[in-house]
């Protein structure tokens, strides 16, 4: 099963600059997942200030807005794509992420990717 793990940072956490040590500690965690063969992809996302939103409405033209988007309470800061045998296993891996060494608080969201069978 595949899972996407979204890092949901509050704006204050997102705006704090990562330190060298933080990157190293996260790097070591990612290495563990690579060595276990469960890592498919991982990346940080450039600030929503540089992002673009598109709003769609039936019958109307799509509305394109460039960031920043002031009302954001949570910002998707990055993601992982991992392969695991169950959601519990995905959680078992991701709870080891060293966020407590990097930020005062952090939250990640683990969601299973839908597959053809989910549509049957």
């Amino acid at each position, binding site marked *: 099963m595949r899972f*996407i793990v*979204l890092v*949901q940072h509050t704006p204050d956490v997102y705006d704090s600059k990562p330190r060298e040590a933080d990157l190293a500690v996260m790097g070591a965690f990612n290495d563990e997942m690579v060595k276990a063969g469960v890592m498919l*992809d991982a*990346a*940080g*996302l*450039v600030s*929503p200030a*540089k*992002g*673009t*939103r*598109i*709003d*769609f*409405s*039936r*019958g*109307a033209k*799509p509305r*394109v807005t460039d960031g920043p988007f002031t009302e*954001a*309470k*949570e*910002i*998707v800061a*990055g*993601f992982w*794509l991992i392969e695991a045998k169950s*959601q519990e296993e*995905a*959680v078992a891996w*991701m*709870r080891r*992420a060293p*966020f*407590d060494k990097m*930020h*005062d*608080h*952090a*939250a*990640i*969201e*683990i*969601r*299973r*990717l*839908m*597959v053809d069978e*989910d*549509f049957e």
Partner: protein
Amino acid sequence: MRFMVLVKATKNSEAGKMPTPEGLALMDDFNQELIKGGLTVLDGGGLVPSSKGTRIKFSGGKTTVVDGPFTEAKELVAGYCLIEATSQDEVVDWMRRAPFGKIDGEAEVEIRRLFGAEDFA
């Protein structure tokens, strides 16, 4: 450069309401157009509704695991798409043609560039 297109959740997506066969066909056609247009769609798909998701909170040295639904969550995601393109404008130009309006009525996507090798040079 790689880009993430985050498709925001709607009442329908959170209710686990599947798109109709017509809707799926529209998305399929759009996908084909993207590929013919030279955009590399690396990966993409729907996420199982957040009620079945899990959040892990890291705070004050404590790790707390919480199952969905997430009542305080503001930004929920229903789907994603990973695209390789030469510019963000290219991605925006293509994504504005996406048939979301026809499929679900209302939809919102957010396009964000991935940090890549070029940022760490």
